[in-house]
């Protein structure tokens, strides 16, 4: 178990509001190993970005971690103060966000932004940091580095900008990279380039990657394992091939069926009736039970869980016990 880089146990994120406490992330446990890409997938509001943000220590107040622990290579990081967290973020955890225009400062040359980050996290002098910046830019596939290092962000295309952001995330050789929708703003051909780059870096450097996205296609192409989230909870976790081909949770099955296929013709796409519950109206028992065709009495009474040491599993009574009748609670 030494190669576990990120270990999240029973994480719970709450937002106290005037109308009561909202639980955005509810009892999530997951691990990412060295050189592994874990995809976190879910629809808007499923809590996937919140999970990423709480690992980065960037939850917007009043959001807070209410329960659970986050360990980075054995060190607990969820209870660090802002200063201590600042030195973890960037140095040990790199972050890549959706919109590369907002993650770069438009007033500074990209080279200077890279050099600043490198010098903040290492003790290289200015010229060595500049060499390192060039090296990183080459590594993420930016052509004509000598000229491009002194360009401003707006002089790059979207795909090239995202490469710069990835180079920034790599500056301090972090153990973990949290990538939140890194390809969503990009065209398909550029998206493929960026996911290929992430895969290569992960393989070559042994970095653990948490890839947060709504796009099942990107997950299927990039991730080793995938965690499916629904209404702040983990619905299913497992190896990508298993989850994509043989989903255990009815929500995952519905999600996969609603994506138009590139190979098979269907007259009608599969639909999941209704929509995901709002955070203030999460139903009792399994959060998915009002939309589930298989729901039974136990689903309406008891919350199904995936044991936190499990690497595969579905939070579904039917998948776990083969029955939806009242269990021991009855």
């Amino acid at each position, binding site marked *: 178990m030494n190669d576990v880089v990120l270990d999240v146990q029973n994480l719970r994120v709450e937002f106290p509001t005037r109308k009561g406490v909202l639980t955005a992330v509810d009892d999530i446990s997951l691990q990412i190993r060295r050189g592994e890409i874990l995809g976190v997938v879910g*629809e*808007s509001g499923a809590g996937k970005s919140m999970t990423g943000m709480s690992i980065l220590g960037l939850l917007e107040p009043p959001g807070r971690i209410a329960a659970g622990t986050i360990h980075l290579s054995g060190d607990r990081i969820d209870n660090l103060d802002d200063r201590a967290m600042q030195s973890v973020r960037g140095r040990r955890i790199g972050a890549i966000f959706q919109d590369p225009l907002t993650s770069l400062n438009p007033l500074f040359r990209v080279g200077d932004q890279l050099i600043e980050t490198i010098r903040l996290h290492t003790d290289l002098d200015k010229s060595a940091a500049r060499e390192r910046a060039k090296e990183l830019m080459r590594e993420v596939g930016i052509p004509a580095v000598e000229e491009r290092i002194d360009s401003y962000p707006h002089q790059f*295309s979207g*795909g*090239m900008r995202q490469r710069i952001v990835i180079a920034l995330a790599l500056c301090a050789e972090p153990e973990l990279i949290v990538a939140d929708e890194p390809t969503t703003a990009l*065209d*398909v*051909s*550029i*998206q*493929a*380039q960026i*996911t*290929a780059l992430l895969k290569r870096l992960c393989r070559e450097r042994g970095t653990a990657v948490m890839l947060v996205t*709504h*796009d*099942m*296609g*990107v997950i*299927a*192409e990039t991730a080793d394992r995938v965690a499916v989230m629904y209404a702040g909870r983990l619905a299913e976790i497992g190896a*990508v*091939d298993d989850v*994509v081909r043989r989903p255990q949770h009815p929500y995952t099955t*519905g*999600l*996969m*069926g*609603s*994506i*138009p*296929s*590139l*190979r*098979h013709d*269907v007259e*009608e*796409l*599969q*639909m*999941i009736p209704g*929509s995901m519950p709002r955070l203030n109206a999460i139903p009792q028992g399994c959060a998915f039970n009002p939309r589930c065709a298989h729901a039974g009495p136990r689903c309406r009474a008891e919350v199904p869980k995936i044991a936190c040491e499990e690497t595969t599993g579905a939070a579904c009574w039917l998948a776990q016990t083969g029955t939806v009748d009242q269990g021991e609670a009855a």
Partner: protein
Amino acid sequence: MTLRSNAILEVDALERRFDVSAPWLNRLIERKPRKTLRAVDGVDFVIQRGQTLALVGESGCGKSTIAKLVTGLHAPSGGSIRFHGDRDRLQMIFQDPFASLNPRWRVARIIAEPLRTLKPDTPEAEVSARVDELLRTVGLAPADGVKFPHEFSGGQRQRISIARALAGEPEFLVCDEPTSALDVSVQAQVLNLMKRLQKEMELTYLFISHDLSVVRHMADVIAVMYLGRIVEIQPTADLFANPLHPYTRLLLDTIPDLDAPRRDRSPMGGEVPSPVSPPSGCSFHPRCPLAFDRCKSERPQRNPKTHNRRVACFAADEGAQDVQ
């Protein structure tokens, strides 16, 4: 002309240029030339009544500009658009269901607007009966009419947009990325609704999307665009079974395929060049694995002799001749 007898829209040599020059004084002082962006550069296609034609391509290829030209939101700089139908019965559905509904209007008023504009004499009772009916058609309740757009989710808002488009009893709908802002399960609901409505009301769609899997599900004919031009146009099944243009092939190779995930593919190199200064000849030649000298100097046309005008590519033409 049997092919065109049932056409509802004929687009011929359509062009749209935008002037993106620097301001006059800068041009004078810095001696900069005028610059034109050819957003749509000689596009032609025909849509048959009751069918769906999809335009696919990456951002900046001109697909949304065509939507605006067809709906009349832009005037063409050249070429022609002939619509064989009632102009009033051409409606549009936009991408962003948050920006395309007036946040200060109640839903009933939003949906009734086309009715009140196109048929101002309609009695008020008839208008509200029609609005109720439209809300039911798109899967909402008549009681939702008194609510404001912010009270709805993205998918529901897109249903409201569809109801508004249907209010004018359209025969032709231009849909510009109608589901791109939606989650997949909601997208499935909206796509199913659009297919059902097409069957029930004999609608014709011009469907614009960057998502090939969505397009495959919706379209009868697919036109692939690259830098303002249609590089390939084929019936959907043929395009997926036998893509002719190298760009289409690369595009099909790059999109993630859920039925065969984790392929160790080599992604397509390069990026879409700037439409302000497109490459000479075939604009795809710098990225094309099959490019030869002729592609750099001459612009390929969709050739009537080979492939029945389906593809604009010298390499594909030569391949066809080899077979013959």
